[in-house]
């Protein structure tokens, strides 16, 4: 029989029944996320084709990430994607949000619904749409021909130099709405008297932006950067459907390499090492960005 003290104890008192409530969720979580993560670390230390007996190779798979030209390129491509997924949307979003925040225009709610829409459409659908747009007879080329720039028309995703920026631009399209909505929400919370004070000091729109708006939304910028940088690092569906890493390996990215190596090349150990590295990079980036965000906002 439970002691009367425990049944009557208010929240905040130690309660052993908590473990019972945690158990089912934790069991699924441990079996299907934690255990596989540990197995991933273990597999990454082996050379294994997925069928025969694996061979212990220590850290060789990790060394390969640094020494192998193709893998280095894949991580380099991820950096390029970060510019398109994170840097451009945050800059454009800041500009758009601050302009829109200055004048309270009507129809902002409708606008928000529309620019947020790409976020809820399956990435595979997005990829199908953009593959069509970039195609040799797609709407981008139609547009170029219509304005007399026929010489620029091409199969964008088949071009060695332009395929990666083309994929990256899809990320810009995808993330800008999210970032703008996030920043608009942050700017909406800024105290109006700060702007009045700045205007009394004779500040123009630019000074106002630098002195009032920008410092006030640092937290939102940190969140937006974390989200979009991680999205750039986790780009798999988009690359798989639009280019499969090609032409050559000009659009291969780490998450695509994980799939390609494990399930197409039979290099399971190497794939696991890339997966583990990717996880560490994502953890490190979110820690660093949130540190910076925390230090600069006093909330």
């Amino acid at each position, binding site marked *: 029989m439970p002691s009367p003290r425990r049944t009557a104890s208010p929240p905040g008192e130690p309660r052993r029944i908590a473990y019972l409530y945690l158990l089912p969720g934790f069991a699924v979580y441990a079996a299907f996320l934690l255990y596989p993560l540990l197995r991933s670390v273990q597999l990454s230390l082996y050379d294994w084709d997925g069928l025969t007996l694996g061979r212990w190779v220590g850290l060789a798979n990790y060394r390969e990430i640094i020494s192998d030209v193709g893998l280095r390129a894949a991580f380099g491509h991820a950096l390029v994607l970060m510019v398109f997924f994170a840097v451009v949307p945050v800059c454009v979003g800041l500009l758009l949000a601050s302009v829109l925040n200055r004048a309270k225009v009507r129809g902002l709610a409708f606008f928000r619904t529309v620019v947020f829409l790409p976020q*809820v459409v399956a990435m595979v659908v997005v990829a199908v749409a953009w593959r069509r747009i970039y195609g040799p007879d797609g709407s981008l080329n139609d547009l170029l021909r219509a304005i007399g720039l026929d010489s620029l028309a091409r199969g964008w995703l088949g071009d060695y130099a332009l395929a990666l920026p083309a994929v990256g631009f899809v990320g810009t399209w995808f993330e800008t709405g999210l970032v703008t909505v996030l920043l608009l929400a942050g700017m909406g919370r800024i105290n109006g008297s700060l702007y009045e004070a700045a205007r009394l000091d004779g500040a123009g729109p630019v000074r106002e932006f630098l002195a009032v708006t920008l410092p006030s939304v640092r937290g939102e910028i940190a969140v937006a950067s974390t989200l979009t940088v991680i999205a750039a690092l986790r780009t798999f569906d988009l690359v798989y459907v639009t280019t499969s890493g090609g032409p050559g390996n000009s659009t291969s990215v780490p998450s695509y390499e994980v799939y390609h190596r494990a399930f197409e090349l039979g290099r399971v150990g190497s794939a696991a090492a890339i997966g583990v590295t990717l996880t560490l990079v994502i953890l490190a980036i979110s820690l660093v960005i949130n540190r910076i965000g925390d230090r600069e906002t006093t909330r």
Partner: protein
Amino acid sequence: MISRAEKSANYVILLAFAAFALAPILTVVQSAFGPADAGESSGFGNFAEAWRIGHFGTYLRMSLSVSVFVVVVSVVLSILAGFAFGTMRFRGSGPLFYVFLLGIMMPSEAIVVPLYFDLRTLGLTDTFWAVVLPQVAQSVAFGTFWMRAYFRAGSRDIVEAGRLDGASTRRILWQLLVPLARPAIVTMTVLVFMWTWNEFLIPLVMVTDENLRTAPLGLAFFQGQYSQGFTLLAAGAVIVATPVVVLYLFLQRHFIAGMLEGAVRE
């Protein structure tokens, strides 16, 4: 303060940005209603044709079962775990919570490789379970984080009052807290539904049987196999995207608030 010119400039920016966001989506919708590739159907007929050729009926049924299972199970498990983290004090709660947080950050790419080979050893690949259970785990990580934050914020007095009335812990959770937490639970439900419906990598790796393909996976295969034109592919894309988009149009506040506040898992 704000001049007329600036105001109209703002409307121009709003419209241009909205057009930019919508254009690729409208391209697909427009193509889906366009003349058929083989010239047999058009308009709504394209959807019927794509449905037939692309087997989207099978895929949507699978996606629906997967999403409903993942949503129901992970919402229940998250409420239980979030309740423990949010209202109770117990040894190890801090470290345990960080373990759950790790799951929010962890990309599917890190777990899908060992999961595939271990489930293959157990003979579980190419089953419904191989598709849903890893996604339940991912959603429980997010859901626990989400419900903990909710229960921490304002449940203390309610729990205390319930306890004084002699209610059991179970009754406090299900009859006092859960009804009040409905908005938070709805948000979690729509987010988990969207993530599960749109998930691509896990079903791609776990399933080769055509009858177990989810809608996005089916669309990707349809694109690979069907090369006669774009109309039916576009119709298929619209079919795959519609359920989540419709849900979004009705519950957009939940979608936007959830993705901005629970902004950790993408």
